[in-house]
């Protein structure tokens, strides 16, 4: 049989697209070590920008706030999503449609509209803007994505495992702790990682709902490039990238991240 012709055009296009995506990111990383202050050309390697960034208390404060917000948003979103998904199963068909509508509305609505609405609402009711409002604002849309992820796993799981657990004598609370949650764990982890990433690079909600005090790192970055693209910006950008990418890279390497369509490594051990 003749070998099928490799789709060469497809690989060329894939290459171009990947390059367009990753070359600028690579430039940011490289330039964070560039000694040339105007970043016009390669002026030799330096750790000066990293040094300045790491000693800039505003950068460090903002980084700390970004992490606090991200963790809080993740906990809140995943908890909400889990409750949503579990409630959905026992809900009446009408309540299910309502929940579906509410979830998809939060995904479809432009973030700027959500942020503006929350901002106006906060003004209306005299709610002080700050860290808490950022977390709530981000959780509004992050929890919707998390709900969809967890629901997908829940629907493939069916009721069979929980029926079996009850049949073997587990009361409802133990069924939840001993079977439902452990089986859902991979999807909960995936949802948490996604929310963490969404939160860390969110500008719109953080900008609208942060008020004058609470400033996250992406908001600081945006403010800085408005004036000039200082070499320091590259170092902040690279640092942010590391913070977001490290947990995912770690999970990919350890094989614990559930990649759709690929069986977990445990299952690949041949039965014998």
């Amino acid at each position, binding site marked *: 049989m003749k070998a099928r012709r490799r789709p060469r055009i497809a690989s060329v296009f894939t290459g171009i697209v990947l390059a367009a995506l990753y070359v600028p990111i690579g430039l940011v990383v490289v330039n964070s070590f560039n000694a040339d202050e105007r970043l016009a050309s390669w002026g030799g390697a330096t750790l000066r920008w990293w040094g300045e960034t790491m000693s800039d208390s505003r950068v460090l404060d903002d980084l700390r706030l970004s992490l606090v917000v991200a963790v809080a948003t993740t906990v809140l979103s995943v908890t909400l999503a889990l409750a949503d998904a579990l409630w959905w199963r026992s809900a009446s068909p009408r309540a299910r449609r309502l929940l579906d509508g509410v979830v998809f509305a939060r995904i479809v609505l432009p973030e700027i509209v959500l942020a503006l609405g929350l901002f106006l609402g906060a003004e209306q009711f005299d709610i002080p803007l700050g860290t808490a409002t950022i977390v709530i604002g981000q959780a509004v849309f992050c929890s919707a994505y998390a709900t969809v992820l967890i629901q997908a796993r829940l629907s493939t799981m069916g009721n069979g495992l929980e029926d079996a657990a009850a*049949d*073997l004598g587990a009361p409802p609370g133990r069924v939840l702790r001993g*079977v439902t949650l452990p*089986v859902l764990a991979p999807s909960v982890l995936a949802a948490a990682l996604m929310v963490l990433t969404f939160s860390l690079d969110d500008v719109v909600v953080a900008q609208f709902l942060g008020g004058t005090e609470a400033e996250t790192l992406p908001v600081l970055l945006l403010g800085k490039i408005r004036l000039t693209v200082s070499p320091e910006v590259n170092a902040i950008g690279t640092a942010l990238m590391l913070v977001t990418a490290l947990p995912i890279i770690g999970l990919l390497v350890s094989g614990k991240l559930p990649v759709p369509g690929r069986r977990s490594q445990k299952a690949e051990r041949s*039965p014998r």
Partner: protein
Amino acid sequence: MTRDPLSAVRLRGLTRRFGSVTAVDNVDLDVAPGEFFSLLGPSGCGKTSILRMIAGLLPETGGTVSLGGTDVTDLPAHRRPVTTVFQDYALFPHLDVAGNVAFGLRQRGGRGRDARSQVDAMLEQVGLSGRADARPQELSGGQRQRVALARSLVLRPEVLLLDEPLGALDLALRKQMQVLLRRLQRETGTTFVHVTHDQAEAFMMSDRVAILSAGRVQQVGTPAEVYRRPANAFVASFVGEVNRLAGKVTAVHDGGRCYDVLLSTGRTVLVPGDPGPLSGDAVDVVVRPEDLTLGPDGLEGPDAVTMDATVADLVFQGPATVIWARLADDSVVTVSAAARIADHLAVGAATSVVWRPRESWLLPAAAA
């Protein structure tokens, strides 16, 4: 708690409706302790719904479920002394084999060395000792099936419910599992209630069977009773192939245990049956293919009936040959005869069909 030694499972008026559909319709059943009892019926007859109501996994629309003489209708699933082997096994993917088997013991506070040795003993009994650390995903279908069995039996339930447990296995494995199930049932003395649509499987394993159709119990009895003396036309044809000879009752004997029937071929025969039909009623005489043979073969005694026929078709099946024989009234009967009897026959040949009416059974004529 009072224990009724005569009844492991007692259903009274059990009913389940899904919207406007009645899946289980006023079912009464009694299963004796230590019995291997099968619920047999085509798919959609409500047999799985009955099983789930016994387990407490499906709320009933009406009626009661008693286990060992205690009404458990209002008890939730986790407080009923029954366990289930599910059709798709429903093993916990996040636990290994030993964890799956220990799951029920842990719910009762069983931990430590004692629980561990119970799990080991159970795995030994189903032949899975070496696989205690495997995940369910790593096991073959037959091994998963045995884990599911072990997980249920280790709790020593009063009743083990089996929901088409062999449905997903290939033929060789099914045979093996049928033997294992029978053995475990004898060894543990547990009452088994088994759901299947496979007549041969139900007959092979069960002490008694209940034949279900459209949510109703059609007949309860030993496999032989159900096969030889079916309660109605549905049971007669569901449990095996059957020939029906149309006729009319001319006399009733023994208070309805025996009937004179005038067949459409013009002969009058004496046929056993259940009380019910009256003189003049249209009836069917049902005869199993293996109770018919071709003559002459020396079996004709004073009680044998011989009917002239021509061979319409025949199929050699190894130990037996199936012959479709056309009778004088143009109806066709199926005959399953020893291969040697049919050796010399060809399609179109004249022959005679021989049977003994006392080996047949009388049923009211099927409507339509």
